């Protein structure tokens, strides 16, 4: 199926779903981080040279630390999120869902040097588009993936309505469809909800205006709010 869901088999015998983050979101997060790094280095470069040779030395060391270790520190010690990633709501985890630690963060950040070749992360982008989990070369070597912290929830609460049993026999898939429809009513416009429900008017054997309440009633019944 064409989606960005990665499934993980856990030792508990259940399948968990993670939403993978695509190249665009990651690039925006990287740009934010880049801006922050430049900002930090710029502010140090403003006053450190005033301290002569010693200041230059300290500046070079700070430059090195910030440039190389910004990503590693945040990804290893702050739940896989650099400030840029946090802003975009994504984080780095190992591909079995466990949080990333120092060796993973180190590997994937050092290998950025290769992902950035020949210009502007081209190798990284090609790698991301070539495998199922959007992994760039650093991710492939470190065994990490970048996922959304909260996967998108397209379901709301089912509107409360007097439950009554469906007049016709519904298969489990059809029951799921009715419940899913009921959960999405809060997220769709009223006209759209009406339009979708009206399609079933001949099957439900009611007037078009009655379709939505009918279906909501069925949904409440199926879910068990009787």
């Amino acid at each position, binding site marked *: 199926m064409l989606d960005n869901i990665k499934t993980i088999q856990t030792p508990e015998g*259940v399948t968990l779903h993670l939403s993978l983050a695509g190249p665009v979101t990651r690039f925006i997060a990287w740009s934010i981080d880049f801006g922050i790094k430049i900002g930090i280095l710029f502010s140090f470069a403003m006053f450190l040279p005033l301290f002569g040779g010693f200041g230059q030395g300290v500046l070079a060391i700070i430059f090195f630390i910030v440039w190389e270790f910004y990503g590693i520190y945040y990804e290893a010690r702050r739940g896989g999120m650099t400030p840029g990633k946090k802003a975009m709501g994504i984080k780095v985890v190992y591909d079995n869902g466990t949080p990333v630690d120092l060796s993973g963060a180190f590997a994937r950040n050092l290998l*950025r040097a290769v992902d950035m070749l020949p210009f502007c992360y081209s190798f990284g982008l090609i790698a991301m588009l070539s495998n199922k989990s959007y992994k760039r070369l650093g991710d492939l070597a470190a065994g990490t993936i970048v996922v959304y912290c909260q996967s998108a929830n397209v379901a709301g609460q089912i509107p409360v309505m007097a439950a009554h049993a469906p007049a016709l026999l519904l298969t489990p898939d059809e029951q799921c469809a009715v419940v899913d429809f009921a959960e999405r009513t809060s997220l769709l416009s009223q006209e759209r909800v009406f339009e979708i429900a009206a399609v079933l008017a001949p099957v439900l054997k009611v007037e078009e205006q009655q379709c939505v309440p009918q279906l909501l009633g069925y949904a409440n019944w199926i879910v*068990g709010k009787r």
Partner: protein
Amino acid sequence: MSQETFIQTHNDLWNLLNEQIRFLATKKRNTPEPMRLDEFPYLFRQACHHLALAKDRHYSSQLIHRLNELALQGHAILYRKRILWPQRFLVFVFIDFPSKLRENSGMFFLAAALLFVPMGIMLYAVNASPDLVYSVLDESQVRDFDAMYSKESKSLGRIRDSASDFQMFGHYIYNNISIAFRVFAAGMLLGVGSMFFLVLNGVVMGAVVGFVIYSGNQERILSFVVGHSAFELLAIAISGCAGLMLGWSIINPGSVSRIDALKSAANNAMTLVYGVFVMLLIAAFIEAFWSSISMQDNTIKYIVGGSLWLILALYFSFSGRGYRGYHGH
């Protein structure tokens, strides 16, 4: 069982688990612990079971989503790693790092050859025919090197006499460690990148030393480099070795898939990269604060430099032999 009954029966368990997860995830703990720690895996397994049931019984997406998020958070908490850093560091220095290098001694000797052989050839060649130095360096760089080691310069190895020791320390940190990281990362390009950088570094260094020897300043340059040469040259060779390991795993994955071979090689290579980082810190320290000291009699510098080579050779050959490292192998 209907979904509503299912939720009513288990809601308390899910909320309790959620609280426990929040408690374990934060470092600041103001509230008491919601449950005993040994109850956590049991409740987590139950929640996973409920998720599987919910999917099987085709319960609504909202419930499945809620349970999925709960299980993901519990999974992250249960399977995370906690490391005791001081102990870990000592085990790394004395066991993991040298053992890992010995395991990959073949690659290491290849990397060392790619570094030292071109260096030796270029050194000899430039000494014999000094114009060859311009094939790897441009005029201004050659002038700089000449000035650094000439009899007129007041301090050894400095481009500007007034550059302080600490400034050079910062420069060496920034310059040398970045180079070593690139040498390693370039190994992803099927190892060819690392080979290229090793040969390049070897050739440039050989050319510089050869040229300075030809100019008659061999005493000055050799007494300068001998101190930190052990740490720096070995570190570059090891980082090349790490890069070659990466490249080789892609070319010859053996009996596992290429991706798995790469992951495993990257894991091993990272041990070496950490060690390279520490070695280059030491080398920068020596280069900035010791090597540039001008002495009347350079014998002590040669003794110190030679001893460091010997110590490192013994360290890599013997340290940690017969011990199990951090991961037990």
